């Protein structure tokens, strides 16, 4: 079955958060999240500020996907990592522009705008953020 149904409205609705990498910082406990939340999962506060998340982070753990879901067939093998951004927000993302064998826990990554997947033969071609080893050293380093 083609699961789930390709949906232009859904992709359109998500574009702001996904293209700009928006998140939330809880005004009560200070934790940062991707994507933005209405309620803090940690402390339950509803006082959260929407923020543009840092474009740099480090790899906490990673895997190499060799048996992908249908929409990603043909991209395998590819690396998916759990990444912690500089403000503590965590997210999942693909690590690209590097061989899977060269990815390490703790390595630094920066965001890059890329094609992500095709929703079937006639659906939307999705773009969004992926992660790569930084091209330049940190400006404030």
């Amino acid at each position, binding site marked *: *079955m083609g*699961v*789930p149904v390709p949906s232009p409205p*859904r992709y359109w609705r*998500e574009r702001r958060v*996904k293209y700009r990498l928006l998140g939330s910082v809880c005004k009560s406990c200070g934790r940062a*999240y*991707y*994507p933005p939340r209405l309620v803090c*999962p940690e402390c339950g506060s509803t006082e959260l500020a929407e923020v543009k998340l840092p474009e740099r982070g480090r790899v*906490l*753990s*990673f*895997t*190499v*996907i*060799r*048996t*992908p*879901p*249908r*929409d*990603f*067939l043909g*991209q395998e093998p*590819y690396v*998916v*990592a*759990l990444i912690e951004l500089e403000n503590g927000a*965590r*997210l*999942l*993302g*693909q690590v690209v522009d590097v061989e*899977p064998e060269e990815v390490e*826990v703790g390595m630094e990554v920066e965001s890059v705008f890329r094609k*992500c*997947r095709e929703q079937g033969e006639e659906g939307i071609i*999705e773009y*969004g953020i992926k992660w790569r080893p930084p091209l330049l050293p940190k400006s404030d380093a």
Partner: protein
Amino acid sequence: MERVFVLGGGATKVGEEWEKSLRQLFVEAALKAVGDAGISLRDVEALYVGNMSSGVLQGQEHLGSLMATWLGIPGVAACKVEGACASGGVAVHQAYLAVASGMYDCVLVGGVEKMTDAVVYDLTTALMMADDYEYAASTGASFVGLNALVYRYYMKKFGVRQEDIAMFAVHDHKYAARNPLAQFQFEVTLERVMKSPLIADPIRLFECAPVSDGAAALVLCSERFAARIGASELVEIAASTMATDTLSLSDRADLTTLRATRLAVERAYKMARIEPSDVDVLEVHDAFTILGVIHLEDLGFAKKGEGWRLVVEGEVERDGRIPTNMSGGLKARGHPVGATGVYQVFEIYQQLKGIAPNQVSDAEVGLAQSVGGVGGTVSISILKRVR
């Protein structure tokens, strides 16, 4: 609350059942359970159907009415219960509540999943629906991949070798070899596990629960009902609990503990008035070897980072300190996702009745843990033999 008893149970052999449909599997298990309980289908007042993915795998929802129809009992209260891979365990919890509340005296609860109707990449898509479709699945992560993130993190944090974690698969196969309901009735060596193909590094094929079809069912009843039909040597559900955690790993501070397991099991031990050391037989949700190890820790049988020792040192064997997965576990008994939680409770029921294929001698207390997603949902059942 009313006391709740397991009056009977039944299950189909787990496997690739090309000739049997979703409804056939369910009806087969339900009829076995009703027969084992010694009741008539007409005694059933409510029906709970644990299932994860019938919508995407069969294009079929509304399983409550469907199964009531095919069991010839339209009219009963019936619904599908979904909690990803914990759907079966959560269905047992709902059935427990239905009897404990005093609302119903006799309830049928089953779980069913028919996975071989789909090709592997559609199945991979469906299983990933256990996590966040919009922000996790959109990265191309698979469900195996999410567990692989936990696996690598765990090995690094505690300095554990993959060979020691992968032993969980060898353990499960040893017991599945003697379970007629198991999908894989043969043993495997650690070497074979470690040489199987990578699915999502570091997880190898033989560390993963397989694609399975199957159904299991139980009849639960009140003390009143048991007395009415003259049932004796009962098995009681001494505790039934469930808890949730954040859906995705990215919202968790600790990747090596399933907080939902800890919450649910703490409540369950309290409710059943027991300690971990009172548990005679255990079924854990080892969808992947690493999860089996983590569960032994979170359920209170090992310190953090040391769950693998119980497996390597033989403590989880039939004659060990905490006999675990005597059914063969998810790895080798098989994992028809939404049915698994019911298979687990059925195994514990058989152990306490003294009729299990890998019988633990004189088992009086058993615990089954069922996990949805990467710990987003956990259900716990503690069963006790009543004399």
